[in-house]
C-alpha cells in the first residue's frame, strides 16, 4: 500500500471553524504514479467492479420481482466506500443510510448473505427480516443499514462515543447523503461529537440529489464540507469519483480522528447513475447529464485506464471481470435458492429472552 506523500490535489478545500468557506472548485485529473502501487489499483478495480456488478444484478433481480420494496443502488459512487475503507483499521466501525449494499461488500460482508437478504431469504444477513435497508454484521463492524434519513448520524456518533469509552483506538465512519445534511439531528450530533472530541469521520456522499431534489433546490448553502464550521469541525471537499483522492483524504481524516482531535467532515463529490430507488423516473435531471458523468468521470474507468497506462493487459482485466461476475452470479443463485424464512421466525428476535 502506497501512502500518499503529496497532498491530494482535489482535497484542498478545507473549512476551519469560523473561516468563511472559499469558492468551490472540484479539481480533477490523474494522480501521479508515485501515489499508488499496481497491486493496490488492482484491488480497487476488483472491489469497485464487485459493487457495480452486484448492484446491476440486484437491479435485475428487482426487475424480476425477486427483490421487493425499496432498493437503492450505489452505482457511480463506488470509489467513496472503497477508498475510505483503505484507511480503516480492524476495530473501526461503519454505519450508513439505506444506500448500503456497497458499504457492506466493502466492509467484507459476504455477497451471498447480502443478496439473500435482498430477496428476503433465510440465508440473508438479517434472516430475511431486514431487507435492503437493514443489514448488520458485528464481525465486520458494520452497524447498518438505516432507513430513516439522517438517523444513522446520531447512532454513528454513539459508536464513536463507545470507541472513546472503551479506549479501543477505533474510529467511526459515518456516511450520509446531501439530502440528510439539512436534518436537525445532524447538527445535534456535530455539536456533541465536537464537544466531546469523538473519533468520527462524517462522510457526506454528495451525489447532487436528495431523491429528486437537487442540492441547490434543497440547501441554502451547498458547500457541505463547511457544515461543521459552526461546531468547530474541519471539513474537506474531495473528488469522490477519484479513488486515490478519496483514499488520501480518508487517511488524513482517520489520522485526525484517531489522534484525539475530534470529528472531521469529508464531502465526497460523487454521482449516482441510477435513480434514487428502483421506481425513480429520473425526470429531474437530463440523460445527457448522467451520460456525461458516466463517460468522463466513471471511477472504475479511471482506475482501469491507469492500469492500462501502466502496461496492464486488457486480458488480465477481463480475467478479473470474469471472477467478479462469477462471485455475483453465485450470490444471485444463492439468493434465489435460499428458502424463505420459516414462519416461526415471525416471532423471533423481538426481544432477547433473558
Amino acid at each position, binding site marked *: 500500500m502506497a501512502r500518499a506523500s503529496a497532498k491530494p490535489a482535489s482535497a484542498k478545500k478545507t473549512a476551519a471553524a469560523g473561516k468563511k468557506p472559499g469558492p468551490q472548485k472540484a479539481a480533477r485529473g490523474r494522480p501521479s504514479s508515485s501515489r499508488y502501487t499496481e497491486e493496490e489499483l488492482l484491488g480497487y478495480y476488483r472491489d469497485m467492479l464487485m459493487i457495480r456488478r452486484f448492484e446491476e*444484478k440486484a437491479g435485475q433481480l428487482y426487475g*424480476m420481482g425477486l427483490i421487493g420494496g425499496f432498493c437503492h443502488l450505489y452505482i457511480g459512487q463506488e470509489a467513496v466506500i472503497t477508498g475510505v475503507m483503505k484507511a480503516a483499521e480492524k476495530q473501526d466501525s461503519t454505519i450508513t443510510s439505506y444506500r448500503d449494499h456497497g458499504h457492506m461488500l466493502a466492509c467484507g460482508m459476504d455477497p451471498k448473505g447480502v443478496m439473500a437478504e435482498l430477496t428476503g431469504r433465510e440465508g440473508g444477513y*438479517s434472516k430475511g427480516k431486514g431487507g435492503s435497508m437493514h443489514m448488520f454484521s458485528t464481525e465486520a463492524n458494520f452497524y447498518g*443499514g438505516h432507513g430513516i434519513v439522517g438517523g444513522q448520524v446520531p447512532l454513528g*456518533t454513539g*459508536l464513536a462515543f463507545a470507541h472513546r469509552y472503551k479506549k479501543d483506538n477505533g474510529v467511526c465512519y459515518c456516511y450520509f447523503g446531501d439530502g440528510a445534511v439539512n436534518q436537525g439531528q445532524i447538527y445535534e*450530533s456535530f455539536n*456533541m461529537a465536537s464537544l466531546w472530541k469523538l473519533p468520527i469521520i462524517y462522510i457526506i456522499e454528495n451525489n447532487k440529489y436528495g431523491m429528486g431534489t437537487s442540492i441547490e433546490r434543497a440547501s441554502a448553502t451547498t458547500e457541505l464540507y463547511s457544515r461543521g464550521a459552526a461546531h468547530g469541525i474541519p471539513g474537506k471537499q474531495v473528488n469522490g469519483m477519484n479513488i486515490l483522492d478519496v483514499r488520501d483524504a480518508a487517511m488524513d481524516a482517520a489520522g485526525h480522528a484517531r489522534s484525539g482531535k475530534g470529528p472531521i467532515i469529508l464531502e465526497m463529490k460523487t454521482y449516482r*447513475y441510477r435513480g434514487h430507488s428502483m421506481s425513480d423516473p429520473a425526470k429531474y435531471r437530463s440523460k445527457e447529464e448522467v451520460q456525461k458523468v458516466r463517460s468522463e468521470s466513471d471511477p472504475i474507468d479511471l482506475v482501469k485506464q491507469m492500469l492500462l497506462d501502466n502496461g496492464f493487459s486488457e486480458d488480465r482485466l477481463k480475467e478479473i471481470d470474469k471472477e467478479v461476475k462469477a462471485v455475483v452470479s453465485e450470490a444471485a443463485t444463492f439468493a434465489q435458492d435460499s428458502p424463505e424464512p420459516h414462519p416461526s421466525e415471525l416471532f423471533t428476535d423481538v426481544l432477547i429472552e433473558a
Partner: protein
Amino acid sequence: MPIQVLMPALSPTMTDGKLSKWLKSEGDAVAAGDAIAEIETDKATMEIEAVDDGVMGRILVAEGTEGVAVNAPIALILEDGEDASALDGVAIAPAPAKTPSVAHEQAVTVDAEINAPSPAPMESVYDGPVKNMTVREALRDAMAEEMRRNDTVFLMGEEVGQYQGAYKVSQGLLDEFGDMRVVDTPITEYGFTGLGTGAAMAGLRPIVEFMTFNFAMQAIDHIINSAAKTLYMSGGAISCPIVFRGANGAASRVAAQHSQCFASWYAHCPGLKVVAPWSGEDAKGLLKAAIRDPNPVVVLENELLYGQSFDVPESDDFVIPIGKAKIERAGADVTIVAFSIMVGVALEAAEQLAAEGIEAEVINLRSIRPLDTETIVASVKKTNRLVTLEEGWPYAGIGSEIAAQMMENAFDYLDAPVNRVCGVDVPMPYAANLEALALPKTTHVVEAAKAVCYR
C-alpha cells in the same frame, strides 16, 4: 444460449406496463448499462438497461404494446460469439414464479401467540433488611449499584452531572463515577438519544435520562425506529441494551406540554419493555432489572413520587422481574388495576371501600409491557369485577388494552363490564381547579368500584 430480457418490475406495486419504445433495434450491439427500451408504468416512463454485453437478437414484444406482464420475456440478446441461429432453438419460458421454490407449509398461529396469557416470571420473596428512603434515593441507589457492578453502564442526560440531576435523582453519581460515566448532554434529545442508542449497539449499557418524557417526543424516532426495531431487523445480530428513564405523567400546574402519560405510546411497540414503578421498592427493583435487561427498556417514573418515602430493600441483589405485577392489597369483591402514582390512589380508594364493606384487590402492574395478564386474570376469576385506573387518556389507553385482554381471557368470569377510570380526554389545563378536574381521584375509583359491584 441467448439471454432473455424480461419485463421488469419498476416499482413495488407494478404488475404490468406498456412497452412504449424500443431504443435498440435487432442487430444493434448492446453494452451492459445501455438503455434498451422505455417502459411506461402507472406512475412514470422509465428506461430499462441491459445487464450484459451482446447483440440485440430478437424483439419479442412490439413497441406500443400495453399490459405487458412483469416477467414476460420481451427480447433476446445474443451473447458474445453467438450468431442469430442461436435464437431459433430458444423456448420462451413463461415468467418465472415470484414465489421461491421452497415454501413452508406451516400456518402461523397468530391468535394463539398474541392472545394466550404468557406465564409471568416468578418473583422471589425478599426478606432481607430494608431502609426507609425516598423514591429519588431508591432510583439513585439502583443506578449506583449497577454502575459499580458493570463498568459499561453509564448515565447520560441533561443536568445529570454537575447539577446533580434536575430532580436530584443522580445526586452524587458524578463524584463517584466521573464525567466519562455521568455525562451532561446539551438540550438535544433527538441527538443524544440516538447517540445513546448507537453506544448500546456497540456494547455499552447506557441509561438515558429524560428530564421528563414530554421531551422524549423529540427522540421517539430513535427509541422506536433505532432501539426497539434493530434486534428484529438484524435477525438477532445487533442488540440494544439501553434504559430510557425519567419523569412521566402530570406533575403539578405545568400545563399541557409538560403533563402527559406516555405509557400507551411505548407499550404499543414490540421490541420495547415498559415499566412504571410506584413505590421505592418498585423504583429500585425495576430500574435495576431494566439496566440488567439485554433489551431497550422504558422506565416511566413520576415526579410527584420522587419525594415520597418507602421501605426499600437494601440488598444489591434485589431485582424485580420485569413482567410481574404485585398484589398490593388482597380483596375478594373487586379488582383495581393501576400503575405508577395511581397505585396510591387505588389503595386509598380500597380503604374507603372497605369502610363500606367492599374488599378491593389492588394490583400494582409494575410492568406495562409485557403485561402480567396472568395475575389480573387470576384476580378477576376471584372477584369477577374489574376497574382499571390510569392518569393517561382513555382513548387507546392501558385500560383499554386490559379490558380487551379480559374479554379474551376472562370473559366468562366477569359479572360486570370492565370500568376504566382515566384522565379526562383533554390537554392538561393550567388552572388549579381545572387541572384537578382532569385527573382521576379517589372518589372516581370508589364510584367505579361500586358501579361494577352494582352498589
